[in-house]
């Protein structure tokens, strides 16, 4: 303990050293009066304050420009928790696209999102990285609307180019939307929405009169409200001609999107019927071949065939 106190007395602190050095320098170089010393001290303090401000300003700017990609992804990010949210949304969106999107679909995205998509297994050849000079998102089928993309295109993204949300992840400013780009623009897309829905409803109504198709109340509701993807509607009459079909449910894996349901759970009167269903579905060509069809046991012990078609889903009967 005593040695410690001793050593402190032997080594003056750095502020004491600086103050002494400054005082001695003044004494040597000025030798002037008290007023002149005051002016010099104030000038020095002012210069130090100015220097500190300039340093702070440059330090702040440097921190922003040192992380341009973070800025691309979310300009409003100011805390690490927001960064984590943005990253989580990005990862979810990338995983969804890798699992649900039709392989070969061309996708536009910002730098970070494209990197996440590539990491999730989406082919780089299908990714178009948005540039700051990009005027419009045309030429691709899908755009991942991150905050940076929304900032770049503004409200025109939805009102002119990409009217349909296929899925969305997160909420608020960090929300990521996966949007379908209408080849002929939003106006044309909107004009056909009503007729497409009417056609889906009409098809659903007809399907419900098919004696080889039975539907649960939930499935019936989905059909009558035009909420079923046309690929399923086209497949079911031919499938039912081969094997009587019971529609257990229609479902989808498109979080936050109001699009026709791309999935279904189908049951048959006999176990052999399920195998026949799978054989029928597997024999279809790409346009009508589900991305997933397998036998699954439900929680109630019932065996069904689950069917899932790729996104983007169809709205009309002529295609997506």
């Amino acid at each position, binding site marked *: 303990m005593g040695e410690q106190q001793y050593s402190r007395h032997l080594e003056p602190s750095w502020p004491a050293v600086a103050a002494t050095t400054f005082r001695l320098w003044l004494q040597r170089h000025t030798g002037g009066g008290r007023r002149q010393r005051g002016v010099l001290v104030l000038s020095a303090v002012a210069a130090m304050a100015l220097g500190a401000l300039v340093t702070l300003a440059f330090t702040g700017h440097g921190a922003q420009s040192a992380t341009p990609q973070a800025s691309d992804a979310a300009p409003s990010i100011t805390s690490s928790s927001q960064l984590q949210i943005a990253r989580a949304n990005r990862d979810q969106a990338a995983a969804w696209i890798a699992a649900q999107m039709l392989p070969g679909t061309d996708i536009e995205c910002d730098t970070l999102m494209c990197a996440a998509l590539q990491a999730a297994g989406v082919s780089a050849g299908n990714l178009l990285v948005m540039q700051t000079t990009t005027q419009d998102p045309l030429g691709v089928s899908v755009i991942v609307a991150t905050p940076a993309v929304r900032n770049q295109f503004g409200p025109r993204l939805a009102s002119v180019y990409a009217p349909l949300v296929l899925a969305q992840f997160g909420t608020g400013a960090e929300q990521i939307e996966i949007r379908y780009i209408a080849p002929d623009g939003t106006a044309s897309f909107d004009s056909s929405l009503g007729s497409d829905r009417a056609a889906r409803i*009409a098809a659903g109504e007809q399907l419900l009169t098919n*004696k080889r198709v039975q539907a649960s109340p939930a499935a019936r509701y989905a059909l009558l409200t035009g909420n079923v993807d046309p690929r399923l509607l086209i497949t079911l*009459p031919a499938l039912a001609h*081969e094997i009587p079909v019971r529609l257990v449910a229609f479902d989808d894996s498109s979080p936050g999107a109001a699009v026709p349901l791309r999935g279904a759970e189908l049951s048959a009167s006999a176990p052999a019927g399920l195998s026949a269903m799978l054989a029928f579905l597997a024999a279809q060509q790409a346009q009508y071949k589900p991305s997933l069809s397998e036998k699954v046991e439900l929680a109630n012990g019932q065996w069904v065939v689950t069917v899932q078609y790729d996104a983007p889903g169809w709205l009309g009967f002529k295609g997506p």
Partner: protein
Amino acid sequence: MKLPRITRRLVMLLAASALLLGLPAASAYASSASTGTGWIRLAHLSPNTPAVDVYLYSFGNSKAQTVLDHVAYGTVSPYLPVAAGDYSVAMRAAGASPTSQPVLSTSVTIQAGHAYTVAGMGPESGLRLQVLDDALTTPVGQSLVRVIQASLKQHVVTVTFGSTVLAANLSFASVSSYQAVLPGTNNVTVTSGSVSAHSTVTLAAGTVHTLVVLDGANGLEIVNLVDASGSGQPPTGGVSTGFGGTAPHGPGSPVPWLAVIGAGALLALTGGLRLRRDGLQPRHRFRAGI
């Protein structure tokens, strides 16, 4: 003014005959619309695709399956009347086992009173079934013509009717819009570079035609399909390319035959009644007159 009895009967007979004969003809189009019947025909226009069997599955009626067997390249079926509604269209290779899986190709919505051609287009590797809306009526005094380019040997063709260009630089597996032309008989010419083909075609007023450019054994061929013949109803007969003998034929409408039979029966009945009555009185009078 009171007409003589024989004149009144003659007028009534003509009116009844007109009702029987005229009304069905005039209202064929309207009645098909109100009873929910449309027409569909199938065309195989993919040059290097083997013959196929084509199936139509009704969305609403599990028993309503239409099958066309062995539809080969260049074959166009007659129009088949089908109930209005939605149908899935599937194909199997011709002669494939009934237990093999049909392959879905497209869907078609049949509207009452409308006619459609479901055409297999493109090369085998990219075969697709395309649904074409067929026109049934024309502008007054004119004929409508469109062109389907189904030649794989000549990818781009230009088709003229006399001096009228029906389709310029039409690429393989595409269809031109209907074009109104003045009726008459003229040369249809298909040209593609130095290759050309000619055919004489008569377009009557009020008729609707589809000209199909095909690969023939010796160059290009032109097939003239009559989509509609003026009554607003599509023809039920086959086309000049011929249709497979195993294929079902268009049943045609029984209404004209029923009308003729009905008119004949009415005529016979009226004549019989007149003979029965006149056979007594006039003859008697005649005899009395003698």
